[in-house]
């Protein structure tokens, strides 16, 4: 098996290295990837959406439909993990309660985590809300929020984290994020525009079309952040405890 693999790798490697010769050199502004659509985005997106962060503008406005279903993929992955691992209710339901003083608990770790978690969450909210003007957005902010909860679950235990954020709400919010995203698009459809054409929000909110694009993007980014936060946390608690949601790692 190892020999066959090495032969396949060698042949493929030679083919790919030969093919790489025809690719444009690194950093060439005239490379095919950089001369067609991307220049339009760079030159026009600020005029059309009033969002200086072009990555966010393309992600949440021009390619919003794509991003909606990326979020659905994340949601489906979270549900799949739940279906595979989560055990059916036990005969004796376990009482979930925090146990801060269990033997072996590390007081330095727990204090550091307790100080860090609110800072992480504040920073994550900044990343989500300021994703139009600086690097950031729903995916990044959602991952930081999820990491803060995972840190809590790691330094204390899963039961304690679940006491703060119950599994029922984790799942409700993960679906709610996707629904918020889709609802923002459906309102546009209802008002006679295309799906996710945020300009339709202008009359509802009493602002200009340009500002409506910016606000619509903020709305969908919040939806993405909620889903990513809940799915990251749900993935961790299910994987770390093997579906039991007890102490975990």
């Amino acid at each position, binding site marked *: 098996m190892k020999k066959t*693999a090495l032969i396949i790798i060698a042949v*493929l490697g030679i083919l790919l290295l030969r093919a790489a010769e025809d690719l444009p050199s690194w950093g060439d502004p005239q490379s095919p990837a950089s001369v067609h659509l991307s220049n339009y985005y*760079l030159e026009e997106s600020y005029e059309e959406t009033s969002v*200086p962060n*072009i*990555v966010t503008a393309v992600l949440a406005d021009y390619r919003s439909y794509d991003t909606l279903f990326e979020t659905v993929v994340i949601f489906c992955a979270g549900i799949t993990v739940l279906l595979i691992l989560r055990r059916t209710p036990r005969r004796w339901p376990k009482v979930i309660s925090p146990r801060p003083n269990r033997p072996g608990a590390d007081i330095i770790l727990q204090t550091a985590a307790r100080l860090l978690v609110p800072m992480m969450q504040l920073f994550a909210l900044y990343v989500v809300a300021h994703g139009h003007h600086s690097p950031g957005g729903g995916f990044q902010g959602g*991952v930081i929020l999820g990491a803060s909860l995972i840190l809590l679950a790691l330094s204390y235990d899963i039961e304690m984290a679940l006491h703060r954020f119950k599994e029922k709400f984790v799942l409700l919010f993960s679906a709610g994020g996707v629904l918020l995203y889709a609802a923002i698009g459906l309102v546009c459809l209802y008002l006679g525009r295309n799906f996710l054409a945020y300009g339709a929000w202008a009359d509802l909110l009493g602002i200009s079309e340009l500002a409506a694009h910016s606000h619509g993007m903020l709305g969908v980014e919040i939806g993405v952040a909620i889903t990513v936060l809940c799915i990251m946390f749900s993935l961790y608690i299910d*994987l770390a405890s093997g579906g039991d949601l007890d102490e975990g790692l």
Partner: protein
Amino acid sequence: MEDLFNYIIGRYNYWAAIILLLIGLYGMIAKNNLLKKVIGMTIFQAAIILFYVSIGDKRGATIPILDHGHGTHQAIEAAAYANPLPHVLMLTAIVVGVSTLGVALAILQKIYRVHGTIEEDEILETIDQ
């Protein structure tokens, strides 16, 4: 000699991506442990992400975020900003990659519960019996 130097400098981003891709593919084919196969898949993914992001780079360009300041708006030169498209595509690909990694780990846990091992040949033996 200088040609060769320019040749290597001009394209070593692709070489790095290709080498990473081959390492990942080798792991997926040759390793017997299913967890190592998953790690191979993740390295493969990293290679693709590196490839896309390096395509988006332009020499001397800055990140694709405009100096803002509403009103004082000047014409934008596309060559001064990196290509935003690969960044957009990879941003979602990274998060989706983490989710699929989660699904893979969940399936591994289930396999371990059923077969008591995640070595491929040992699983095949238990299936044959």
